[in-house]
Structure formats: C-alpha cells, structure tokens
C-alpha cells in the first residue's frame, strides 16, 4: 500500500490546522456562513438534514487494518457509532459536530487519511477496481496509476476551481468493476495488439440529470503520458466548460456539445503543446510509486485447500458464502473475499464501529492487512488464504457480516435519500430494505442470479439508478414520494443507460413492481441469461406490460 512521505504528511497536517483556525473564526462570528461554507466543503464537511456530514476520502478504496480500525474509533468518538460507505469508495459520517471536526481530522491524519477534495469543483477521489492487485483478470495493477493521479491532482492549482466536480476511475480488467464508462474520465488499462500496455481514454460519461455513456477519445495512450494527457483534457474542460449554469457544467455536456471528434481534436492539440514539458513523471518516480504496490509476501501454496474442501462439504451455509462472496485470486492457494454490507432489511453501506473494528482485526490476521471499499457499497478482503477462509467466515459471522448475496437482488445500491440528504426528493433506503425483505429467501435469490438494483432519491443519481439492471428514482409529486423505474441499465463493460418504464409508482407499488419484473424474467429467460440479458433480448415491452397491466 502507499505510505505517506513527508510531503503528504505535512500538507495534510497543515490543512487540518488551517481548517481548525477557520472553524474557530466561524464560531467566533468572524466568518459568515457564506464565507465559511466553501472552506468547510473543501474539507468534506456538508450540512445535511439532521446535522453536518463529513465525507472522508478512501483513495481508490484501499485501506490498511489500522485505517479501518481508526474509522471505527472515529465513528464511536465523534459520531453515533456507525459510518456509511458510498458509491465512490468513500465513507461518510452523518452526525459530527462542527466543533469536533478539527480533532476528528487530526485523528484521521494520524493514520494518513483526510477529507480533502471529497467535495467542491475539483478532481475528486480516484476510484478503481476493488480487486486490484489480487485478480488474475488484470493486465497490471491499476493502483500505482491511481496514486500518481492522486498526487498530481491534490491541490493542483490550475484545477481547484473547475466548472464542476470531476471524477476519474481506472480499471485494468476486462470485466469493469469501476464503472469507467460513466465517469468524467474513465481509463481502461489493456494490452494492445503489439503487446504494449496502455490506456483507453474514455471521456464524458456520467449520471445525474443528463446521463451519458462516455466516449473513447484515444484508443491507446502509452502509460508514461498519463498525466500530461489528463492535464490536456482538464485544461480544455477548464477553459471551455460552461460556468453559467451548474446543470450544464460537467464535462459530459461540453463533450456532447462540441461533438466527440472535435473534443478529441481539442485535447490532442493541447496535448501536443505540453506532452514533453515535464508534466509526466520520470521513470524513477514511476518506479518509486510502483514499489509501494509490489505484491505482498504471498506464500507458496497448493491451489487446493483440504481444510477448505472439508468445511465446504460439511457446512451448507459456508459453501453458499464461498460460492457467492469469494472469487479467484491470481496467487494459488488464495481467494478474494467480499464482505456484504447489505444484510436483509439493513441499510446499504452502513457499518457499525464494532463491525469496522472486526473487519480491521480480520484483515490484519488474514488478509495481509488490507481492506477495500467497493463502489457497490461493500467491502473486500483482497488476499485471504484458502486455508483461512473458514476462520474468516466464522469471524465475519460473529460480527453479523457474513451475508451471502454479492451481485444478487438484495445487493442493492441506495443513496442516503430523504432520510439524511438535504437534496433528496424521496427516501431510498426504505425501498431497498423492503425489496431485500421481499426477496429474502436466499435460495430463490441465488436461483435468480445476477440482478443489480440501484436506487437514487433524486435526479443527482448518487444511487446510480440509470445503470441499474432495474433502476429506481425517487421523485416528489406534490409532497408525496413517487418512484420512477428504469430498465436495462449497466455500469459495467457492457454499459448502457436504463430506459424509463412508464409512469411513476407509489412507495407501496414499487416493491410489487420489482417482483413483477422478476416474474417476466423467470418466465422468459433462456439458458444462463441474466435479467439484463433477457431484457436486452426481449426489449422493454413484456416488462412494461407486466408492470402496468390492470395496475
């Protein structure tokens, strides 16, 4: 994992002390709220419905056990004993007091964490594949590039006041777990026909009120040019992006207004000017950063574990958890473990202080000290020996973290919605809870297979509803909650935007609606088709019919 050097440590410490002074001045009345608000937002502090909310950055979702333990302690000491993992691999605290936030940030700085650039019109936390460095699917570990981007973008003076916020995601695997096609910039590391590894550069994707799947503006970018090419894109956007209307200010609007070819030309022209001007890292510096991500000391193990096979045969629940929550590792004898934060009837992404500490202990004992957050609001233990899987499962079970449902109908993304968020029009979490309760039967869930339900409480789409196989968007109709259903979206390598199924449904109708949609799938699916495949093959009609027949 990356460790702070003296520069990182200094700049985080300085920022906390600067913010401490700003908070003092605000409390003393020397700063007005108008003056203070942009300063608190630069430090990840929002004001929500019930209280302040602090969003803490988890760079590309990677945490050490020490960091995870500290997140748990912070939840207990400064908040109400829990945190919420978000769709950007970050964690949010829902109840911190303004007067405590400087101390809270000091506690985070002690473990190399902060809340910088988790808000505001700057380059936000870079997100990536939660299986990075562990999966055999990747051509290379994407994390060193995430770290290079993190360092380059932190306090980048030219890009501190962009027209709007800016999100970058990187994948190095064919199967896209980082949703790169719906980011401002998506980067896909791959090997070209000449056998060289480089980036496909995708620009202008995004959700929100004007959703787009991104366009490829460069098929192949040699790795060494990563930063200069990003700088060229950001510079074009910074100069040409709209600032007169915040709803038209994201790069996707610019890309689609200019047309993809014209936009690509603008970037290439800018890049031609700056590509050899010293923005890109020299090889030694790239190697220095790479070294932080050198594979940990994996043991040489047989790929089969007898201990594991014995338990698999004798414990049905364990066997199911293995099937649903673990995936193959690049190293023989190891596995990647997913920890679901979606218990039946629970709040997607929420985790208690005690659970965070339990995950920290398990990661320290069994996962080479590493934990990851996923954009689907779950956690990952990336490096677990197969021999240890039963111990990990047992410890997770003790912490109520052994729900087996990754990728299934109850593994729902939901934004905080109107239960917490001041922007929301409707509640999201209760809908997720009721759907997961309706489909609680795990045998039936497993039989249904992969089905991604994503719920947003407003058009800003933090719950990614546009890319849900079934998407649910909360809207407000004269003070009442209504829900619009979209069908056929995907945020993966087969990215697509869902289509609106028809008129909005009441809170009571929406869970039945999901069941009807699932019914159509069950009736028509062929072979091993997923819900999404059946939808794509049949089109929207049979699903719409089921939704609205005599309803």
């Amino acid at each position, binding site marked *: 994992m990356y460790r702070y050097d003296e520069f990182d440590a200094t700049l985080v410490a300085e920022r906390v002390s600067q913010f401490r002074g700003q908070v003092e001045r*605000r*409390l*003393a*009345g020397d700063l*007005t*709220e108008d003056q203070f608000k942009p300063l608190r937002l630069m430090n990840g502090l929002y*004001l929500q*419905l*019930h*209280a*302040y909310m602090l969003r803490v950055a988890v760079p590309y979702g990677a945490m050490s056990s020490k960091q995870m333990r500290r997140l748990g302690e912070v939840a207990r000491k400064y908040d*109400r004993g829990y945190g919420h993992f978000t769709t950007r691999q970050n964690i949010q605290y829902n*109840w*911190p*007091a*303004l*007067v405590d936030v400087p101390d809270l940030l000091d506690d985070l700085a002690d473990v190399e964490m902060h809340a910088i650039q988790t808000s505001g019109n700057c380059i936000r936390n870079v997100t990536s594949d939660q299986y990075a460095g562990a999966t055999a699917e990747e051509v290379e570990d994407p994390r060193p590039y995430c770290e290079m981007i993190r360092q380059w973008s932190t306090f980048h003076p030219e890009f501190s006041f962009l027209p709007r916020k800016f999100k970058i995601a990187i994948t190095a695997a064919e199967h896209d777990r980082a949703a790169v096609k719906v980011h401002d910039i998506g980067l896909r590391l791959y090997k070209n026909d000449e056998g060289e590894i480089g980036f496909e550069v995708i620009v202008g994707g995004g959700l929100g009120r004007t959703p787009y799947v991104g366009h490829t503006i460069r098929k192949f970018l040699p790795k060494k040019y990563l930063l200069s090419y990003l700088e060229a894109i950001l510079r074009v956007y910074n100069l040409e992006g709209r600032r007169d209307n915040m709803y038209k200010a994201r790069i996707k609007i610019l890309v689609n207004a200019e047309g993809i070819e014209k936009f690509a030309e603008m970037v290439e022209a800018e890049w031609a000017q700056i590509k050899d001007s010293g923005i890109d890292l020299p090889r030694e510096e790239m190697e220095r950063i790479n070294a932080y991500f050198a594979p940990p000391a994996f043991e040489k193990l047989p790929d089969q574990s007898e201990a594991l096979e014995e338990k698999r045969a004798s414990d049905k629940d364990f066997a199911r958890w293995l099937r649903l929550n673990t995936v193959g590792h690049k190293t023989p004898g190891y596995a990647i473990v997913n920890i679901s934060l979606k218990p039946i009837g629970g*709040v997607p992404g929420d985790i208690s202080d005690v659970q965070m500490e339990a995950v920290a202990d398990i990661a320290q004992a069994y996962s080479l000290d590493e934990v990851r957050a996923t954009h689907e609001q779950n956690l990952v233990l990336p490096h677990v020996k197969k021999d240890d899987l039963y111990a990990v499962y047992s410890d997770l079970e003790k912490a109520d973290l052994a729900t087996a449902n990754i990728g299934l109908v109850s593994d729902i993304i939901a934004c905080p919605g*109107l*239960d*917490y968020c001041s922007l929301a029009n409707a*509640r999201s*979490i*209760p809908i997720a*809870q009721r759907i997961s309760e309706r489909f609680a039967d795990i045998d039936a869930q497993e039989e249904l297979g992969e089905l991604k339900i994503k719920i947003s409480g407003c058009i800003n789409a933090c719950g990614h509803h546009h890319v849900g196989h079934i998407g649910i968007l909360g809207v*407000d109709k*004269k*003070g*009442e*909650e209504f829900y619009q259903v979209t069908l056929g979206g995907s945020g993966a390598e087969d990215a697509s935007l869902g289509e609106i199924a028809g008129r909005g449904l009441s809170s009571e109708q929406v869970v039945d609606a999901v069941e009807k949609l699932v019914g159509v799938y069950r009736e028509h699916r062929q072979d091993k088709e997923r819900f999404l495949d059946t939808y794509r093959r049949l089109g929207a009609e049979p699903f719409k019919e089921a939704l609205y027949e005599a309803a």
Partner: protein
Amino acid sequence: MKAVTGNRLGDGAVVYLGDDDRWTTDLAAAARFEGDDAKSVLAAAQARVKEITDAYLIEVDGAGAPAGREALRETIRKSGPTVRLDLGYQAGA
C-alpha cells in the same frame, strides 16, 4: 403558518425559534408567524450568525406539525431518519 428553523452552528442540530426568542429542539414549542411577520423574524434570526446556520421558514399547522409540500422532509428533520428510530429527536435522547 410559518416557523423558523435552522441548524445549530456548533453541532448542526435541527432547531426552531421559540416564543422566548431562544432556539428550541421541539417544533411544537416553536413560535408561529403569519405573512410579513415571518419574513422579518427570519431576517432577524439569520443575523444571529454565531448561533445558527441555514435558517429558513417552514410551513406548520395549528398544532405545530410540519405542513404543506415539504411536510415529509420537515417531519424527517424534526424526528430523525425513518430507518434509524434510535437516532434523532425521535429517540428521545
């Protein structure tokens, strides 16, 4: 009828302007205003920058319960998250 609400500066807690001109956490105890009165009271409340942030007017009924278009939002603010009955004022803490 209107009441003045905002978030307490130091901890962000939801508060309402009471009859005694002090902030209360109990909406039922909030002062209620009509028309232009409400606007001038709000302006005075907004000027209390060391105590409060994001002050605004909400609609309430005669019993002091949230009313109108934002009733659901203001009910959730007044009580706490509907998915965590152990948190917020609804928890009785």
